[in-house]
Each structure stands twice: as structure tokens, then as C-alpha cells.
């Protein structure tokens, strides 16, 4: 969806058009849910955060800055809500993922569920700031400049944070025998 399409939909939403809001919901429900899920590692928490995000969007359309792209606004709300949720549910301490020797050699192919599980476990061992850039880059497909816009940090900082996040994630995955 282009910026113009989003802007038109938002104008209709401000005028009380629920159908327009539903179109935005259909478009962004999955990425918002996925971002929250990768940040929180819980489908139930991700569902609650997704609901909160869309309610906040609905209630704050008049605060939306049309010079920004809609996705950068909604993704920023999503990440902030997820981080708040982490704080509320006392999950600020990174979860330690224990290395499990399941008898598989490194050359053995792991199935996609296993990859997903290992990646998610490794993701939960790194700080929320680092997890955020990984989520934006790899699960929401954002470019450096888009991440910079969403997080409101310089592009240079995006690159360095992403590099550090990947190094930490690589180390965490090494302990699982995946890398």
C-alpha cells in the first residue's frame, strides 16, 4: 500500500469511516502481530498488544503526522507498546536459552519450526533495543532509512545497532548448535 493510499484511508477514518479502518486493520494486522510476537515471545501477549495498538491508532488519528508514512507510525506504537508490556510483565531480564544437545550434527538440516524456535529463543536473550532492530529489519522488512524513521535515530546508528544485534544473536545461536 502506498503512502497516498494510507493517507486517503486515514482521512476517511478521521471522518468516522469504519470500513477504511478495517482496510488498515487487514493490511497491518499481521505485521503488527508478528512484531509484537517476536518482541514478547507470547501469542497471547502479542494479541493483547495488537489490540491495544489498533485502539490507540483509532483514538489518535488526529495526532497522526501526514508527513510521515503510516507504517512508521503504527510500527513505532507497536514497538513502544511491546517494550511497555515487557516492563509490565517483569520480563526485562533476558531469558537465558540453554544449549540442548539433541544429537543433531551441524550439517543436518533443521526444519522451519526448529529454525523459528531457535531464532525466537536467541532473540529473547538480547536486549530489547537490539531485538527491535532485528524485528524491523528481518520480520517487517524495513530498510535502514525506514528503521531510522521509525526509531527516530540516525541511519548510522541503525547500522551499528544492527551489526551489534546480529553479533549477539549469532553468539546466542551458536550455543544452540545452529550456527
Amino acid at each position: 500500500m502506498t503512502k497516498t493510499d494510507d493517507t486517503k484511508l486515514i482521512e476517511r477514518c478521521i471522518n468516522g469511516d469504519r470500513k477504511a479502518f478495517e482496510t488498515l486493520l487487514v493490511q497491518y494486522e499481521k505485521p503488527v502481530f508478528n512484531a509484537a510476537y517476536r518482541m514478547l515471545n507470547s501469542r497471547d501477549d502479542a494479541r493483547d498488544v495488537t489490540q491495544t495498538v489498533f485502539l490507540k491508532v483509532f483514538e489518535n488519528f488526529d495526532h497522526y503526522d501526514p508527513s510521515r508514512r503510516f507504517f512508521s507510525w503504527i510500527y513505532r506504537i507497536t514497538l513502544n507498546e511491546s517494550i511497555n508490556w515487557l516492563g509490565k510483565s517483569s520480563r526485562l531480564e533476558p531469558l537465558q536459552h540453554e544449549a540442548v544437545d539433541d544429537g543433531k550434527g551441524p550439517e543436518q538440516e533443521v526444519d522451519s519450526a526448529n529454525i523459528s524456535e531457535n531464532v525466537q529463543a536467541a532473540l529473547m536473550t538480547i536486549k530489547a533495543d537490539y531485538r527491535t532492530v532485528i524485528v524491523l529489519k528481518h520480520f517487517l522488512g524495513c530498510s535502514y532509512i525506514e528503521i531510522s524513521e521509525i526509531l527516530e535515530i540516525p541511519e548510522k546508528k541503525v547500522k551499528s545497532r544492527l551489526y551489534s544485534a546480529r553479533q549477539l544473536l549469532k553468539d546466542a545461536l551458536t550455543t544452540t548448535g545452529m550456527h
Partner: protein
Amino acid sequence: MAIEQKYTDLINADIDGEISDDDKAALDAFLSENAEGRALHSELSSLCTSLDAVEPAEPPRHLRHVIMSSVNPPSPEPATPGMLQGLLAAPALRYAAIFAAGVFLTLSLVSSDQIFNHAFDDVTGLVGSIADPVNAELVNSVSVDESQVAGTVSLRRSGTMLILDFDLASADPIEIEAGYTNPSIWFNGFAQLESNGTSVSAGTGRVTLGMQGKRRYAVYLHNEGGRQTTVNLQFKADGEIVHEASLDYEPAE
């Protein structure tokens, strides 16, 4: 020897597809002469392949309905509330009034064979004794997560009363049939948290409900002797069954 940051940035940019032609040429020249750089490039590429291989998670099917239901514009309030609105501001009175409206609606819709079964012998005793389903003991509950309808249906018990507590959302009209084979069970009342939006009709051994949107309502069944029973639920959209579930009640020993 540590790799210069300039080259780690280029390695990342290359993996992310955000490298210019000139930078790509510079990176290739560097990698051709630096084994450590090649190892880093390979490790990070492998990591990113793993990350990109993760399948996106599917949101719960009912989530969209729940969100749409919760962003309904509020109904306009009357400018100056009248005496009745003032009285109904008290939650207990409001619930009782809604319940009474529900029973009235039920009486107007229920089929005649129920009346001959003396299903309403105890209706007047309902308000105040079971009007608050939260006080009833939860026996069993089922979740529904279909594209047409989603939410939960709980079976609660209060004395000789079984209460089917529906908390559902549907985008389009759906019909729900609650069937019970035990002949000692009678349909005994209906209440809902909205003043309209749900239809109900009852016959021997079954109650049929029609709804659309997000609805919370309760069906009250009189269970003579507190016997064991199973309530079979069928959810229909456009006449087709889209979900089936059962709720069992086992009396305590």
C-alpha cells in the same frame, strides 16, 4: 586483527542489499584479500538466511473481529437523562432491567411446547439469584476460533440452574443451536448485556440463538435434580455448520 568498521558496515550493507556499485567493488576487493572478512561475511549471511527463513506467525482468527467490535463509535447519550435513565445508572438495576427485557423477549419468542413443559415455573426467582453469571461456578468452557465466529462459551452452575455464558463476536449473522438430550432440563430464561442484537427461540431439548457483532449473553437452563448432561453446540453461518462443540456437566459425587 579486527576488521575496520568501514568494512563491517559494507559487509552488512551487502547482505542487506543496500550497497552501491562503488562500495560493492571496494568490498569485493577487500574480501578477496582478507580471510577474516570473508568468514564474517559468510557467518552474517548464514544468520540472515536463518532469520529470513522464519515463517511469519498467523494472528488469531478472531482478533480482527474483536478489534473492529471494540472501535464501534459510542452511541450518542441523551442530552438530559430522564428519570428512567437515572434509575438505570445503578449497575444492579440496569442488569435486572436488561434481564427482565430478555425474559420478556424470550417469552414472546419461545415455542408453545416449552410452555406446556412448565419451563417458566421459576422465572420470577431468577432476578437477584442468578442474574450475575460471575457468581455462578464455572463448570466447563470451549473456545471458538473460526473466521465466521470466535470467542468462548462457558457452562456455569448455580444451584439447580445451568447457565450457558456466550461471549462471541461475528462479522456476519450466525445462528447457534444449543441442544440437550436430558429431558429433565428446561429452558428457563435469557439475559444479555446489550439491550438488543440477539434473538432467541426455544423448543424441547434445544435453544436457538441468532446474533451478529460482539455479543455477551446468557441462557439459563433448569436442571431438575442436578443431573449429568451434555450441551451440544452448533454454530451455523448461511445455514452451514461452521463449528461444533460440547459442554459436559457432571454433578459432584
